[in-house]
């Protein structure tokens, strides 16, 4: 009996070390977030304020939502380039459901989110069944979604002016007496659901195992094809949610937008320590990654640094994040 006790204690100790190792990239990302925030707080008198912090959180919502879904796809060893224009298509679909067809909010919003799931489902089918490499399959979907968004909206924005309560989804204040936009609550809620699914459920377990060793997963009797489709479809729901959030923020669905969001979202995922080769990553990391991007954009803007330079700096941050991750991998 003492033997089992000893092994349990040993296991707890090595377990902790393992956890700490696994969390290192997250800790690094979090530390960078603090350092960057501290820098801007010193550099600009306007950065460190409640209003600016909520503004940063608010501006993280769309990228953050997209990044959460993409985290699943990337951990499973895939990639999704269609999330940006897919989001624009879902925003347009939200307009079609709520404005053109006139569905009530309680039906139209879930329908728009489910439409995102449909985009993911098609991606998953193309990747898992037709065996098209994820990069190409989702690149094609990126174009299809962009085209469809323009076709379905006649290339004109759809305004939600007559849809009561739609913009409240993003800019309203559900919390009484506090200026805290609903959009941030939605992001946090989505992150919580995603984190639980990723760590506590079979979906999450197979997401990691498929990304880690697809063949081993199949040999363990798991229907890899079906789970891949499920993972892409599930990630697609976040495309839909992002479409709702961006159109609620703007009060309109802008069919020509979306391109470029996918790269920012993937950058957030990578900065947060998720490996592009699959098998490794976390939702917390992704959130921190998305926050780093927002803080950089916000801080550089406050310091009146031109947009062009902001992109240069963001690019360098991605390089540093991936490089530190590689160094750490070599050491272990």
């Amino acid at each position, binding site marked *: 009996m003492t033997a089992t006790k000893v092994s349990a204690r040993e296991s707890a100790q090595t377990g902790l070390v393992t956890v700490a190792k696994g969390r290192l990239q997250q800790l690094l990302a979090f530390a960078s977030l603090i350092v960057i925030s501290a820098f801007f707080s010193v550099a600009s008198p306007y950065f460190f304020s409640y209003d600016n912090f909520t503004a940063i959180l608010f501006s993280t919502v769309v990228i953050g939502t997209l990044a959460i879904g993409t985290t699943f796809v990337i951990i499973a060893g895939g990639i999704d380039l269609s999330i940006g224009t897919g989001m624009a298509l879902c925003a347009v679909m939200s307009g079609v459901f709520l404005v053109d067809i006139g569905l009530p909010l309680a039906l139209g919003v879930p329908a728009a989110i489910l439409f995102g799931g449909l985009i993911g489902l098609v991606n998953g089918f193309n990747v898992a069944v037709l065996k098209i490499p994820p990069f190409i399959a989702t690149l094609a979907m990126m174009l299809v979604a962009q085209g469809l968004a323009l076709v379905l909206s006649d290339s004109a924005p759809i305004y939600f002016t007559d849809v009561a309560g739609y913009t409240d989804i993003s800019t309203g204040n559900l919390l009484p007496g506090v200026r805290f936009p609903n959009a941030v609550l939605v992001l946090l809620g989505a992150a919580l659901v995603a984190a639980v699914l990723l760590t506590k459920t079979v979906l999450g377990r197979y997401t990691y195992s498929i*990304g*880690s060793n697809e063949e081993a997963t199949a040999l363990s*009797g798991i229907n890899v094809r079906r789970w891949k489709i499920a993972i892409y479809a599930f990630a697609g729901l976040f495309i839909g949610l992002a479409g709702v959030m961006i159109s609620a923020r703007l009060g309109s669905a802008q069919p020509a937008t979306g391109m470029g969001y996918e790269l920012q979202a993937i950058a957030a995922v990578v900065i947060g320590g998720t490996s592009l080769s699959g*098998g490794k990553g976390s939702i917390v990391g992704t959130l921190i990654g998305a926050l780093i991007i927002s803080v950089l954009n916000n801080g550089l803007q406050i310091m009146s640094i031109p947009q062009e330079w902001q992109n240069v700096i963001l690019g360098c941050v991605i390089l540093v994040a991936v490089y530190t991750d590689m160094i750490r991998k070599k050491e272990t």
Partner: protein
Amino acid sequence: MSEPILELHGVNKSFGPVHVLHDVDLAVRAGEVTALVGDNGAGKSTLVKCIAGIHAADSGEVRFRGKPVHIHGPRDAADLGIEVVYQDLALADNLDIVQNMFLGRERGSAWLLDEASMEQAARQTLASLSVRTVKSVRTPVSALSGGQRQTVAIAKSVLWDSKVVLLDEPTAALGVAQTRQVLDLVRRLAEQGLGVVLISHNMADVFEVSDRIAVLYLGRMAAEVQTKDVTHGQVVELITAGRSGDLGLARPDTAVV
């Protein structure tokens, strides 16, 4: 001599024009280690994959505990209690030992995995196999040595109350000490009453742990003999020529020059 727990009769398998297995018979007995040997391309791995349900046999009969069974996938094999430890170690590197051992058969509901129960069962299984080299069952497999990985792969196969375990070259990539550990483990599986099939190229390993030796030669079962009745030399002859004295295929292959 006990009744075979797993029997194959007249199994054939072709890949297109290539006839890989010709009327193969094989019997696996509980509590015994049956070594499956043969030259490269003799059909060992194909035979194992037919038993595991990865490949469907073209014809022939598989009997499990005397009853004919049809194995159409890894799940069917697993349901019968047949487990395979693959040569290339079917483990997911980023997952820990517990997660790997339970991969595909997680405990708890689909929406809430029962980690505590899985962790305890994994620890018990490792203990029952007298595995002491693994410190924590929460170590990611990527951090383990080759021998430890093999140990985990084997432990994974016995976690399921399995009856037959097929090991495809478990010692191929291991050092001396680690080979020792794995062979001990193989022997222990048989002592626990499992039917063990060991594929190996290493004659020393085969003679050390096996009770019987089945020799495949160009897709045919050349001989199935008791290990104690044959010598190294005879087995090597069976592997390379398909026959050795009275043993082996009746007609030597005409291709032999």
